[in-house]
């Protein structure tokens, strides 16, 4: 991100409270970790942090883990986020219990762009997809173009196949570039 003019910071095994409060100050938010899964009919809508803490789109009364923080509870906090990427299983899948992270982030809370995955993604292909995606946006591709081409970059790695990265979904201004560095439209 620094090469694009953004100052960046990252943390591993952070608590959801840290990420939840930081999200409001970010231009770009990138999460790489586990997604929420109760069963095949109730999956998605949440990303998992340390100590069983979660950021969830919303809740209908289901509370996974020990601590929960809701995108739905933000006021205008993430309205100037340019891009949020949730690299987890089912991050763009609607969960009747905990909502839809991508829709909640863009449609309800006003971030410019959000990317999630409707299917299962795993560590190695996820890592390759994200490395390729960020390279491509740094080289000036639009978010939609970078996501699509990064998917094809994964296909011919071993083992051959998309392995879920083809299920990416983008909400918002998908034809935008991330350069020049900026916040989202407030």
């Amino acid at each position, binding site marked *: 991100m620094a090469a694009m003019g953004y100052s960046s910071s990252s943390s591993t095994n952070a608590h959801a409270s840290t990420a939840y409060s930081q999200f409001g100050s970010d231009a770009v938010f990138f999460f*790489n*970790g*586990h*997604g*929420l*899964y*109760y*069963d095949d009919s109730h*999956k998605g809508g*949440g990303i*998992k942090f340390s100590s*069983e803490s*979660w950021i969830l789109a919303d809740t209908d009364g289901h509370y*996974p*883990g020990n601590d929960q923080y809701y995108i739905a509870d933000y006021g205008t906090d993430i309205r100037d986020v340019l891009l949020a990427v949730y*690299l*987890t*299983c089912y991050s*763009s899948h609607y969960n009747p219990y905990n909502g839809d992270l*991508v829709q909640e982030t863009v449609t309800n809370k006003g971030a410019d762009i959000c990317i999630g995955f*409707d299917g*299962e*993604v*795993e*560590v*190695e*292909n*996820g890592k390759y997809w994200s490395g390729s995606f960020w390279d491509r946006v740094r080289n000036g*591709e*639009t978010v*939609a*173009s970078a*996501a*699509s*081409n990064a998917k*094809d970059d994964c*296909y*011919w*790695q*071993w*083992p*051959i*196949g998309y*392995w879920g990265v*083809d*299920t*990416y*979904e*983008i*909400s*918002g201004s*998908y034809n935008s570039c991330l350069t020049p560095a900026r916040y989202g439209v407030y």
Partner: protein
Amino acid sequence: MGDSIMKWIPITAIICIVIAVSIASAAVTPIGVDTAKGKAQDFLNASDATVQYQKTEHLNLGEYYVFDTGEGQVYVNTHTGTVERASFDSARKDSHEIRLDSAGAEAAARAYAEEKYGGFAEKDMRLIESDLISHGDAGSEYSYIWREEVKGVLTPNTVVVNLNPSTGEIISYIGIQREINCPLEPKLSRDEALKIAAGQFPGIKVIDATADLAVEYTRPDAQMLTWVVTMKGGPVDHVLQGGLVVVDAQAGDVLMVSPYL
């Protein structure tokens, strides 16, 4: 008689060495960038297309010159000159409305594969995936994936055609074609591979699993017969268990464990 044998042996040996050396150098000498550029233009059916060299990319299954076409990229194999991948960014426009039915889309994808992938009709190419995939606000695409199957083994020979469901335009293409040079008979059975894979996720309660025999390039230019296993397990602490596991189908070694996110 004895003298003539003594003379012929070294001469024959020298000829063999010369031939071996020239074959080897032909295999490793890359084509020039300008030649590759011409191949890219041929692929695009436009000899005057603007094609700009971007970089050379090294993958396990080959080395590529990558060209920017202004609206996408073309990847030319540096040794064979074959275009093995192309993308067309502008073809993604207006991909929200589904105007093509799946039969029409598949016919268009197959026609493209037959045009661009030499010997497509002659090989035993099995359609292993055919999906209409939504990318949310970014539209949708039909995705068709063929893999060659030999003796029940998926080879690296594959064709991918992704196309716009509204216009039928090709969004991206991948076409890999390689000689198979590793044994196709596994020493490890499917059940043994599944057992090894399950062992990578202690305590997993398997709810679904697949296992495919596949030739993969696990190292640069080196084919290996593998079992490619996906294993889904019931959740622990609200997280899906399992993932992707690749096992050497001869020795039983675990080559990759990639848990679900």
